Structure formats: structure tokens, C-alpha cells
């Protein structure tokens, strides 16, 4: 079957373009906007995580906001209680990732015994219930009023932008390496058919748990970056809607592909802002637009943005085939 995706050269060019845009952006936009784009980078990582567990491994997680929250609180606690400020603040990011990794594995283990729908249920319940759990230890987590981080050690929005996108770039490369190898193949085989995967020798417990753990790690890193950007961490920061947003972002980006994630990230960050001036029913209720987008995407392009790219990439060969059947008759 002809490879529908653009060739290696095109992909490398696209990546290079992305890097160029990222480097150029801060020079073009205002300081305030740089914070927003830093948040885009944060969403990028979170959606990456969501895509890994749902798009590649086929496990429907509706609770990845909870892992973001875990990462955010890790950073907040290390900074607020243990004084990991200045340079150490950045060091909290990998720690947050590691702890989120562990949490993801914990969630992945019971998920082994459950079929897809139940996994969705459990993760949904997790997303609703975890924020309340957090308020139970106010001396540790700051309770309902939250934990402030120090912000005196942040030299400005540009710094946040660089931190966020550096992490995002590292995560992207890590994910790419992971997914193109054996792990990626194992994930995809589990998504397509668990029974077939097992008969091909893929260990379900190992890879399913790993999918949850890795995706949770990315979400945790995103959460840590968020805490650094927003400077305060409270239980209200990660309600159910965050988890739902991640699913929206991943669906729009395109499940099972890395090439549309930036679209999802931009959507998640800017939609609430755009919706403030949107006419009619969308005004100040970005959820309406999100809901409509989700439904329409599933109807029209279930593959999301990446799927759209695939369809566009197929156009040349389709045009050729069209030409061949309709115009070649004169030759034969």
C-alpha cells in the first residue's frame, strides 16, 4: 500500500519549520502573549500524554487532568515547603514527571482487568474525585486556598516561554523515539486488537501499565510547568474540565499521530479567549464550541488534524488515479 503520509524529507522540513517558528515567535509578539504561548507549550505536553494513552494505546482515559494536578502539586510542594527555588525550581519538573509516572502506573494496574468502557468510567471518576481528596491535608497541600510558589526568581515571561517549550521539545523527541520503536508498535497492536496483540506475544500488563505511566509522566510534567507559570497551585486548578479538555485537544489533533498536537494545544489555550468575543451561543461559553467541534470532528474527520493532513497527502495520488482511469483509455 502506498505510504499515505508525507515522506521523511517533508516531515523533517515541517519539524524544522516548527523550530524556526518557535524561535522567531518571541521576537514578534508582546511579552504578555509569550506567557500565553508558554501555556500552549504546556498544553502541548499534556495532549501528547493523552494521545499516547488514548490515541496510540487505545485506552480511553478521561482523567489525565488528575496527573497534571499531581505534577503541579509536586512542584508546588517542593518549592513552597522545601525551598526548591531559583535553579532548583526547574529541577522539580523531572521529579514531578517521575511521581506522575508512578501514579500513572498505579492507575494502570487496575485498568488491566477492565474493559475499555470501565477504564473510561474509572478515570472520569478519578478526575472528579481527586481535587477533593487534595483538600484533606491542608498543612501539606495548602488546602482549598492553595500553595503559592515564589515568583521572585522568574525573570519574565520570556523565561517561562523558553522553559515551557524546551520541555515540550524534549518530551516530543522522547515520545517520538518511544513510539517509533517496539513500544510504539506494542501500543498500536493493543489498540487495534488486544487478543491479536497477546497472540503476537505482546505482554498486556507491561505495556498497558507503561502506557498509563508514560502518558501520566508527560501530563505531570505539563502540570509542573503550569505551576511554575501560574505561581499558585490550588485544587480548583484542575477540575474535571481539564481532563475533558485534554480529550478535546487530542481528538482535534488526531489520535494516534504526533503531527497535529500543536493544533490541539493552540485550540485549548486560545479558544476560551476567542470565545469571549464570539457571537451568539459561543460567547463566554467555550464549552459549547468545544462540544460542537468534538462532535463535528467525529462526524467529518475522525482522524483530527493529522487525519486531515493524511487526506490532503493522498490527494496527489488520488488525482493521479483519477487521471489514469479517465484519461488513459485513449492510450489503450
Amino acid at each position, binding site marked *: 500500500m502506498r505510504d499515505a503520509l508525507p515522506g521523511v524529507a517533508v516531515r523533517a522540513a515541517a519539524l524544522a519549520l516548527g523550530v524556526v517558528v518557535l524561535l522567531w515567535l518571541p521576537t514578534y509578539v508582546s511579552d504578555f502573549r509569550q506567557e500565553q504561548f508558554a501555556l500552549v507549550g504546556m498544553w502541548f505536553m499534556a495532549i501528547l500524554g493523552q494521545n499516547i494513552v488514548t490515541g496510540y494505546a487505545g485506552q480511553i482515559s478521561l482523567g489525565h487532568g488528575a496527573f497534571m494536578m499531581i505534577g503541579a502539586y509536586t512542584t508546588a510542594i517542593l518549592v513552597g515547603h522545601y525551598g526548591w527555588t531559583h535553579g532548583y525550581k526547574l529541577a522539580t519538573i523531572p521529579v514531578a514527571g517521575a511521581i506522575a509516572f508512578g501514579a500513572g502506573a498505579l492507575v494502570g494496574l487496575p485498568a488491566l482487568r477492565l474493559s475499555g*468502557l470501565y477504564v473510561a468510567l474509572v478515570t472520569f471518576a*478519578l478526575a*472528579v474525585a481527586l481535587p477533593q481528596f487534595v483538600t484533606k491535608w491542608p498543612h501539606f497541600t495548602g488546602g482549598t486556598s492553595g500553595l503559592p510558589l515564589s515568583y521572585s526568581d522568574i525573570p519574565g515571561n520570556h523565561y517561562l516561554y523558553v522553559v515551557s517549550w524546551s520541555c515540550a521539545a524534549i518530551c516530543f523527541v522522547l515520545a517520538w523515539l518511544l513510539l517509533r520503536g517496539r513500544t510504539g508498535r506494542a501500543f498500536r497492536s493493543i489498540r487495534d486488537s488486544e*487478543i491479536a496483540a497477546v497472540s503476537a506475544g505482546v505482554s498486556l500488563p507491561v505495556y498497558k501499565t507503561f502506557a498509563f505511566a508514560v502518558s501520566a509522566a508527560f501530563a505531570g510534567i505539563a502540570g509542573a510547568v503550569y505551576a511554575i507559570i501560574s505561581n499558585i497551585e490550588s485544587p480548583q486548578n484542575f477540575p*474535571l474540565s481539564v481532563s475533558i479538555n485534554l480529550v478535546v485537544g487530542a481528538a482535534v489533533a488526531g489520535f494516534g499521530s504526533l503531527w497535529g498536537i500543536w493544533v490541539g494545544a493552540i485550540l485549548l489555550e486560545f479558544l476560551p479567549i476567542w470565545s469571549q468575543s464570539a457571537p451568539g451561543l*459561543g460567547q463566554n461559553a467555550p464549552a459549547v464550541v*468545544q462540544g460542537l467541534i468534538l462532535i463535528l470532528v*467525529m*462526524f467529518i474527520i475522525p482522524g483530527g488534524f493529522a487525519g486531515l493532513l493524511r487526506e490532503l497527502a493522498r490527494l496527489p495520488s488520488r488525482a493521479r488515479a483519477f487521471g489514469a482511469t479517465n484519461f488513459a483509455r485513449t492510450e489503450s
Partner: protein
Amino acid sequence: MSSVEQTFGGAGGHVTALRRLLGPRSTGPAVVLLLAYCVFLVIGSLKSTQFAQQVVSGIASGATFAALALALVLIYRATEVINLAQGEMAMFSTYIAWQLLAWGVGYWGAFFLTLAISFLGGIGIERLVIRPVERGGLLAIVIVTVGLFLLFDGLALRIWGGLPRDFPPAISGSPIRVGGVAFSVQDLVTVCVTIGAVILLWLFFQFTKVGLALRAAALRPDAARLVGVRVSWMLALGWGLAAALGAIAGMMIAPTTLLSPTFMQAILLYAFAAAVLGGLESPAGAVVGGLAIGVTINLLGAYIGWIGSVLRLPAALAILLVVLLIKPSGLFGRAAVRKV
């Protein structure tokens, strides 16, 4: 012949009917467990009025969980999917009721009008939104229900704003006191209305032609088609009934919790726990599960200080997890064998 049939002999037909009511292969141990729990509740109530109070209000909130759980089970049996938007749909219905009341419509007029609107809305949603993706696989359907969740959430926010509002009870009045235990009038109404709706539904399913067709369509859609049942319309009917049930749940809960776009989210979680506890395939299980969760969460919150009122949701999550880990098919569901 099972021991039940031996004991009850000629009442075989009724026992079979009871068995079928409880769902496929109702397990003896589950019934025993429930009976033991009921005995515990009765004894506790007799010994302490505070205990009895918690049980009573637990039954009332449990009745609303039961209604929403029953809605979830209805849709699950028909389309093998859990409607994540059930809570938000119920919330939206409750807002519609609020609006009707604000326009001056009397309570019961608004109530039944809302039921009718919700019923039609549910049918419409199944036809327009669910049917196109029915064959798209689990992920597509889940995503679409998430989309509905967002849509209703956003619409409610947009139309009525985020400020919590008062929703009137069906009948206002001072609590009725029986032996030191206060029965709030709204609680009584809730239980009556919810149980009444459940009984009506049961009658519909058991004794009407359409009800039988719906059950057949849910059980074996291919065989149902061959008999002339329009299966896809039956599914839509299931969604309509579920939406109406959700509306009932919403209107019964709103007086106690204030109406806001997010007020049904926690209830949905309790309903999930209830439906899973009872067994996703069992309607009676959903009702029993709802009542059980309502009472249990109340008791846990009241007597285990650490849980208090803050950790009720996590407690429900814990129950959900425990059930899924020990017996995923719940109390009355068919034991599903995972072969891999």
C-alpha cells in the same frame, strides 16, 4: 430445578418473573449480602435516631442516584455505551424546568412538560448525534458523549449564567416527625416520585408491546429486526426514556443543592458507582445500587469523621474501584469473562 423453585413450587412463574426482574443470573450471595445490610440498617435505626435520620435522608438522595443510574443502565443495555453526558442532560432539563417555573407555569405543569421535552430531546439526540457514530467504535461514541457533555455544560452556562439559583421543591412544608426522626417533605416526594417512575417503567417493559420490543431490540437486535422491530427507533426510545429519568433526578435533587451548571457532576459520579454496583446490565440493580450508595455514603460521612462531607465523592470513587476490582459485573450483572 433450583432450590428456589423447589421451595416455591407452583409459584414458579412468579419466581421466574422476579428472577428476570433482578437481571440475568441474580446471585444468591448478593441477595444475602443485601438482606444482611438491610438488617444492619434496621437495627441501627432502632438504636439511634441519628442513625435513622442518616438512613432516611440517604434513601432520599439514593432514590435520585437510582433514577440517574437507571437511565445509564437503560442506555447501556440498548447501545452498550455509557452516556457520559447523562448528568449534563439532566442538568439542562432541570434548567428548562426552572425557566418554565420562572415564566409562571405551575410546578406540576412544569414538571411534566419538562419530562416531555426531555423525552423528545433524548430521542432527538440519539437520532442526530449518536446514530451516525454508532458503528465508529467505542472511542468515537465516547468522544461524542463527551462532546454532548461539553455542549450542554456550555449552553446552560451561556443561557442562564453560572450563578447558583434556587429550585423550588415539589411540595413545601415542615418536616414530618416520626419517633424522633424528621422526614423532610421533599425527601418523601423524591422517594415516591422516583420509585413511582421506576414502577411505571417496569410495567411498561413487562406488559406493553413496545416495551417488549425495546427489550428484544436491546437483547438481540438482529433477531428483533427479523420480527419486524425497528431497532434503531427502539434505541432512540431508550434514550428518550433515559433522558426523562435524568430530568426527574435533576428536579428532585435541585431543591437541596441549588441549581448550577455543575450541580449534576457529582451526582453522575454517584450514579456511576450505583450502576456499576448493581451491575450495568440490571435495571433493578441500578435501583438497589442507588439506594445502597445513598445510604452508605451518608453513613460513612456522618460516622467516619475523617471522611466527613468533603470526602464523599472520593468515597464513592473508592466503592466504584472496589466493585470493579472484585466483581466487575456488580451485584446482579452477568459475570463477564475476560479471556485475555
